[in-house]
């Protein structure tokens, strides 16, 4: 099956290795992976800021770039949710585009969800060794039902021990533009998340959304914790 990889702008800018890890995983699952070169951002920041016009412009761009694939996969629950569940609302007033958004919607998946439920990946290419704790990012959890999938994949790695943290499902305080509009509130919420995560004494905090992970990593380092690693699930599953 032909899978279009939606890299996400944060991965593009900040952590390209997550993008390559996603490709490796998808190829290990037997997919033909195509990365449209013109992709930029899904438009979520515009939509969540109340700028419908910009959100619509970017939605149309993504639809045009990705509508030809069997599936669209993103290493982010937040971006996948936006494309899958919000594009139809964004384009509700433009019937032709609405039809395209509706057609694309069921083909869009978050990476771990796709690997477990669609591609049914059995053998992982990586062999991470150590203990991890998993942060459930909000959009993936509540809108796409991402909860068991990353844990199922982690369970396939013989040397990984999952140590659940208290309140794993609580928001980390990132919230996209919220983190730069209300920095002190955002950081205070992040502190609770970090405290819960560190209490597990896991070697790494793992998640499926880079925004949350950058928030958690930034707060951890500010709290003086240089030890605990902060990793995307794709990095763990492909670790060498």
């Amino acid at each position, binding site marked *: 099956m032909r899978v279009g990889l939606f890299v996400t702008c944060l991965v593009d800018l900040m952590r390209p290795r997550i993008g390559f890890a996603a490709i490796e995983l998808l190829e290990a699952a037997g997919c033909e992976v195509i990365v449209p*070169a013109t992709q930029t951002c899904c438009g979520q920041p515009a939509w969540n800021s109340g700028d419908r016009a910009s959100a619509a412009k970017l939605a149309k761009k993504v639809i045009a770039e990705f509508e030809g694939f069997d599936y669209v996969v993103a290493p982010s629950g937040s971006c996948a949710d936006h494309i899958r569940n919000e594009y139809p609302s964004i384009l509700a007033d433009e019937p032709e585009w609405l039809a395209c958004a509706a057609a694309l919607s069921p083909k869009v998946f978050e990476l771990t969800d796709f690997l477990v439920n669609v591609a049914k990946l059995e053998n992982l290419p990586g062999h991470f060794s150590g203990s991890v704790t998993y942060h459930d990012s909000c959009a993936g959890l*509540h809108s796409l039902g991402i909860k068991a999938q990353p844990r199922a994949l982690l369970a396939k790695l013989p040397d990984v021990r999952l140590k659940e943290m208290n309140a794993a499902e609580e*928001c980390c305080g990132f919230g996209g533009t919220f983190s730069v509009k209300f*920095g002190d*509130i955002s950081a205070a919420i992040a502190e609770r998340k970090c405290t819960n995560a560190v209490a597990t004494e896991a070697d790494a905090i793992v998640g499926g959304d880079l925004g949350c992970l950058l928030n958690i990593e930034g707060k951890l380092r500010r709290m003086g914790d240089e030890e605990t690693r902060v990793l995307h699930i794709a990095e763990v599953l492909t670790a060498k």
Partner: protein
Amino acid sequence: MESRSHRFKENAAAALANPVLQANMRTAKGKFVDKRAIAIKEIDDFEGTREAAKQLRNLVLENLDLWLEKFETNATARGAKVLWAKDGAEICRHVAEIGKRHGIKKAVKSKSMLSEEAGLNQALEATGIQPVETDLGEYILQINNNEPPSHIIAPVVHKSLDEVADLFEKVHQTPRKTEIPALTREAREVLREHFLTADMGISGGNFLVAETGSVALVTNEGNGRMVTTLPRVHVVITGIEKVIPTLEDLATLMRLLPRSATGQSISNYVSVLTGTKAPDELDGPEHLYYILVDNGRADVIGSEFQEMLRCIRCGACMNHCPVYQTIGGHAYGWVYPGPMGSVLTPLYTGLENAIDLPHAATLCNQCGVVCPVKIPLPDLLRKLREKQTDKNLRPWMERAVLKAWAFVAASPTLYALGAWFGVRYLKWLAGGKASIPVLSAAPEWTKGRDFPAPEGKTFRELYAERKAKP
């Protein structure tokens, strides 16, 4: 109540810097969240019950005018008088007139958020009627110079035992007590005297039952029952959206409200009150008034925000909100805090008067998940943001940045160029370290945390390089 919502950022900063408040919020959070989680498991079909509650609330809103008329007819038939108030000032005028008509000197009140919207206590004092708040939390606030509540069902959630002990010692002029049961008894004794001597009781109304013309009141302390049983005049102040069709609907909602609010299977007292005392009855009010209040609600009907009017005021959204848990309720600046407040405040007090509130949410959707009547709170917050954008109410700098970003993101070439420079600049700023402690482009971010350094090249560059290799 005068809104301080326009000062949200300053209010929130003060809350974050208040160690007592921070400790109190941490204590409260666990209790609310854990108790609800246990209580909802008692319901075999909790999701089905939520859906039923959503449907029945929608049924009313879709024909609200006719349901109000139905309620009015049935309540009037049982001897109640139904009054209408467009705003807070009119609530105050009605209550003052009722007070004058019946020669009222003292009014005991059970909790009513509409009374807060109207600033009723101050208005009553001005007309010579002594208002006495009788919900323990509201009483504590009243004797603390009319401090506003910070939560719709737990008004003093922001206060510690020590603060209450100090306050009682000072106001009651009694030896300082440090046990919660002793403080509760002290308040009971003070307030019992007021219950027995008041000639008017003022309550809110959790629901108005159209079928029977009744008001349903849900309380734990028993003050709601006192206020509606002992004084000779009872005034119910409630929003026009509170109508429900039948007693069966009340039963359905009572499976949700206490569980969502306090994690109880049922509240201690659910009172369904209809009409006035019969001549041969030994207790109960001789006069019953309903004040049905608009104060912004009518304009929400038929709008894209109508779903907000399903709200049954349980407080679950704020109990589960990471932002509320962090800053408490006062920061929101008006009567209703948390996610429901961030929707209601701009709708009722004006979009431009609560510019930050719709943005003061991570859109994590925990509120939407726990809402017993399935209000899509994050969607409503986002729609409010859109309204602000449409009316050019956001700061010009923010709008400019967003527009510039959207312009760049729409052009792959510009985007690639900007990204190329951006990641190299950040990498240079990090100076070989893993994170950047101060970032002038995002000062809000680095106030409380580091900014992790990028790898140094974009994915698109690296991917192109890889493709180019044989």
